[in-house]
């Protein structure tokens, strides 16, 4: 699907044109740095179908590609991508833009769907914390979460090819758990620290 073939974005969506370092190290203009988190919040708070459509156009083809790289056939991947997007709609109330990017959230849904569909196994999830999304998340925290994801994307792009390939293979289900290398070379410490702080704050509030 090319950009031109897409129906126009609903008004009020879209945004700044950003620049990002490409894999070869050059700076290139990239497509609209759309505020995906803002769109998902609209889905969450107002059941906004136009916002859902924009999310679908961006994420469904990526989920489909992710599932096909993980070994699903095209038809199964298409069906599962549909399921993933339906879950995104249904569970939008659990999304908190201060905690994770939309891409991360979509990834976790797609991963669980893959385990279900391809491995026919159950996946135990950690106990849910009773923090729920705040109605008005701190904008600074939201921005920080988004910038962190962008930084992580740049760091991943800057990795030497063999290392990057290993990470991709791990996440595309190409490596068994004993083959996965622990050292990613990615700056995960900042993300961990931010989430750790948020958890401490929450524990404090819960008393």
């Amino acid at each position: 699907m090319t950009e031109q073939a897409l129906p126009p974005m609903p008004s009020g969506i879209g945004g700044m044109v950003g620049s990002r370092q490409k894999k070869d190290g050059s700076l290139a203009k990239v497509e609209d740095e759309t505020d995906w988190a803002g769109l998902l919040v609209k889905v969450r708070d107002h059941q906004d179908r136009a916002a859902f459509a924009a999310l679908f156009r961006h994420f469904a083809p990526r989920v489909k590609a992710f599932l096909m790289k993980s070994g699903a056939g095209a038809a199964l991947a298409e069906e599962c991508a549909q399921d993933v997007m339906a879950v995104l709609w249904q569970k939008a109330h659990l999304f908190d833009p201060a905690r994770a990017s939309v891409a991360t959230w979509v990834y976790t849904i797609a991963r669980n769907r893959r385990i279900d569909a391809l491995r026919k196994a159950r996946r135990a999830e950690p106990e849910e914390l009773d923090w729920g999304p705040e109605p008005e998340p701190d904008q600074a925290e939201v921005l920080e979460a988004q910038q962190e994801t962008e930084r992580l994307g740049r760091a991943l792009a800057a990795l030497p090819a063999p290392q990057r390939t290993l990470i991709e293979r791990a996440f595309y289900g190409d490596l068994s758990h004993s083959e996965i290398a622990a050292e990613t070379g990615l700056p995960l410490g900042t993300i961990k620290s931010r989430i750790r702080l948020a958890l401490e704050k929450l524990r404090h509030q819960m008393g």
Partner: protein
Amino acid sequence: MTIRHHLSDQLLMAYAAGQLPEAFNLVVATHVSLCDECRARAASFDAVGGVLLEEAEEIAMGEDALARALERIEGLPQATRSEPLKPAGIFPAPLADYVGGDLSTVRWRKVGGGVKQAILPTGKDASARLLYIPAGTAVPDHGHRGMELTLVLQGAFADENDRFGRGDIEIADEEVEHTPVALAGEDCICLAATDAPLRFRGLIPRLAQPLLRI
């Protein structure tokens, strides 16, 4: 409660990548339920998956895909907050879900020497079980093939190297050969998972092994 023994990066990354056997998933999810440090680390590995998804190539959906999706969500109410799974006594929520209740619902089988176990229903690529070790009792000296995870839920045990209390996880591989002993005080209850049968050093446990399915 201070947790001193955590999950490895390798396990957390494999968990985020969805590549762990079901029995290991259960141990990881149970530890993360008790350990904010590992919860935050797990989330950072999820973010790697998010970035890979974002940067991935796209494969076009079918022509009517969006129309179908819009039609589908039309009939799909957005879920109101569903009741999250609850912990039950010493069992964090994911484990309580597998056991189907709290400690009183566990159907223990005697292993000998006062040690009891209960095998949990998981996929066959690895096995998970609850272990009940009376305070002061040693678990038979054993080495490992593959990997073995042991998460303490109650009481504590120690081996030649270290002490493990509630929430602590011991990760043992082929290198480790040890004699864990449940410490005096409370009886020790653990969740253990392995992707290979344990091999016991003593003759009797080795004979009993096929019967115990461990």
